[in-house]
């Protein structure tokens, strides 16, 4: 679910308010987008993809899970980077050649080992 709107990075372009398919954001009195209806967030990551300044972070869990912005490091903006959105980047679509989905051979060892 959406957890972070970075007040430091946000340029109040309202893009996230526009693109969120489930209308999770409202514009707060100070002009910043606020997460007004987090329970409606479907964890689709689209707001993050569209944010031009990587101010948003969607946690991958479908329940609320507070996140510390300072600890995110490279994860902030990482989806947009992978999509190749943003000036000077190669569109990810250009490189999107997935694996052949044939059925591969079964694994050798029978016992799964956690690492």
């Amino acid at each position, binding site marked *: 679910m959406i957890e972070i709107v970075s007040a430091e990075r946000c340029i109040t372009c309202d893009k996230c308010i526009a693109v969120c398919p489930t209308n999770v954001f409202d514009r707060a009195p100070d002009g910043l987008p606020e997460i007004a209806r987090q329970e409606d967030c479907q964890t689709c990551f689209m707001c993050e993809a569209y944010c031009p300044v990587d101010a948003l972070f969607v946690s991958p869990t479908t329940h609320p899970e507070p996140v510390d912005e300072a600890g995110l490091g490279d994860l902030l903006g990482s989806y947009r980077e992978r999509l190749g959105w943003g000036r000077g980047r190669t569109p990810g679509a250009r490189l999107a050649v*997935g694996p052949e989905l044939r059925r591969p051979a079964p694994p050798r060892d029978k016992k799964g080992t956690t690492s």
Partner: protein
Amino acid sequence: MSIELSADVLVVGGGPAAAWAAVKAAEDGARVVLADKGYCGSSGATAAAGTGVWYVPPHPEERAAAKASRETLGGHLADHRWMDRVLEQTWQNMDEVAEVSRYPFPVDASGRQSRRGLQGPEYMRRMRVRVQRSGVRILDHSPVLELLTDADGAVAGAVGYRRQEDRAFRVRAGAVVLATGGCAFLSRALGCNVNTGDGYLMAAEAGAAMSGMEFSNAYAIAPEFTSVTKTAYYTFATFYHADGSVLEGAGSQKGRSVIARTLLAEGKVLCRLDRAGEAERRAMRLGQPNFFLPFDRLGIDPFTQLFPVTLLAEGTVRGTGGIRLTGDDCATDVPGLYAAGDAATRELICGGFTGGGSHNAAWAMSSGTWAGRGASAFARSLGDTAGRRAASPVGGAGLRPAGGAGRDTHREVVAAVQAEVIPYDKNYLRTGAVLTRALGTLNGIWREVRDGLAASGESAVRARQAAAMTATGRWMYTAALARTETRGMHKRADFPAQDDPGQRRRLVTGGLDELWSVPETAVAQAVPA
């Protein structure tokens, strides 16, 4: 104050089928309004994901092989003529994606584009631009709540709510295309929470029937507590019990029911993508970056570490049931009403089974194209009379309570419906006794919704979603009970065999208070437009 608009064609929805319908209606000269519950470009099952496309060169052998590949899986309910049409239309539309929208397809060493897949965000961002450049008026965050019909029962527009402006809107239209997606029951499967069956309910209220609603029990593999469904990549997975021993028979394709049974019995299934080699691992990252979002953000290496998985309900989004079509132009049983994409039945090309993407993506662009043109032609045939027609709203449940004691909160209704349609031991692994009990419960919920659920503004949107989910669940189980066999994705534990030729026909299902389900042979056959 309500916004009043008029158009030749109103397109409801904002995914690929809606976008293609709007573009093709506009190219045909129609004045078009597109109203989406979310945002056209990010809304729906496609935009958030990546999808293969059923894109097959026009060589007779390749096309024949493509058609044959899923026939058995689909239980032989698909129609060769429709498959041919979709293959041909998809071939043309993908050309337009490349040439008109300049989609950056991968290029091989000889400079040739590979057009077998689309990244959802890129594809739909470009489709929105194309819709806008076609002169279509887009209403984002504008869920349509009910249809309008004229004195003869033909659809004449729709009423909705602009949720970011808190005001109603009304569009008078010569024809309406429903491209509202399927119904995944707010399961949070990737991008699917806007798909609550709204179009089915609106179509039924206007008099349309459904087809293939028994094929409505798709479940996708996702890491536990996340939204990212990409079952195809789990062909590289081995599945394990909680103690780390291999879960025999489990797999992403045929063995998905083993996963469901183990989740029911043991509460936990672990997974590792240990069948992917180095090259495949790299290709997966490039092929679908969103697949790795949960792993990267949870600090899991899915190729070397075990992680718990779940099965997320995708209902009819990756089922094949939907609004019944009555013509090549994607007309429905109701004059002036057209259906496209997941809102329409996909049995015509998939029969009773579909995975994600591929056929669905091809169907969305093909049926969208035909529905847009069909709606435009219908509107033109009305001439000047279109705007002068009487137009009365036909919405019921959730908008106009019949009276009496009923449910008054949409939240309660949603939770009660989910309890009947999401559990694996009710919907996935089906038996007559359990289906009968669940349908009884859903019928009870429907009566309460119809009698007591009423709301306005934003709450009306929620109430209508709850009503549509209730109706969808009831059509699903009515059809599932009528099909006393196992075919396609519909698996009856009490009828484990496919009944050929006895039940090799599609089932048409409908009704609001009283439901019915009959073989397609018993209703008027689909006729070419």
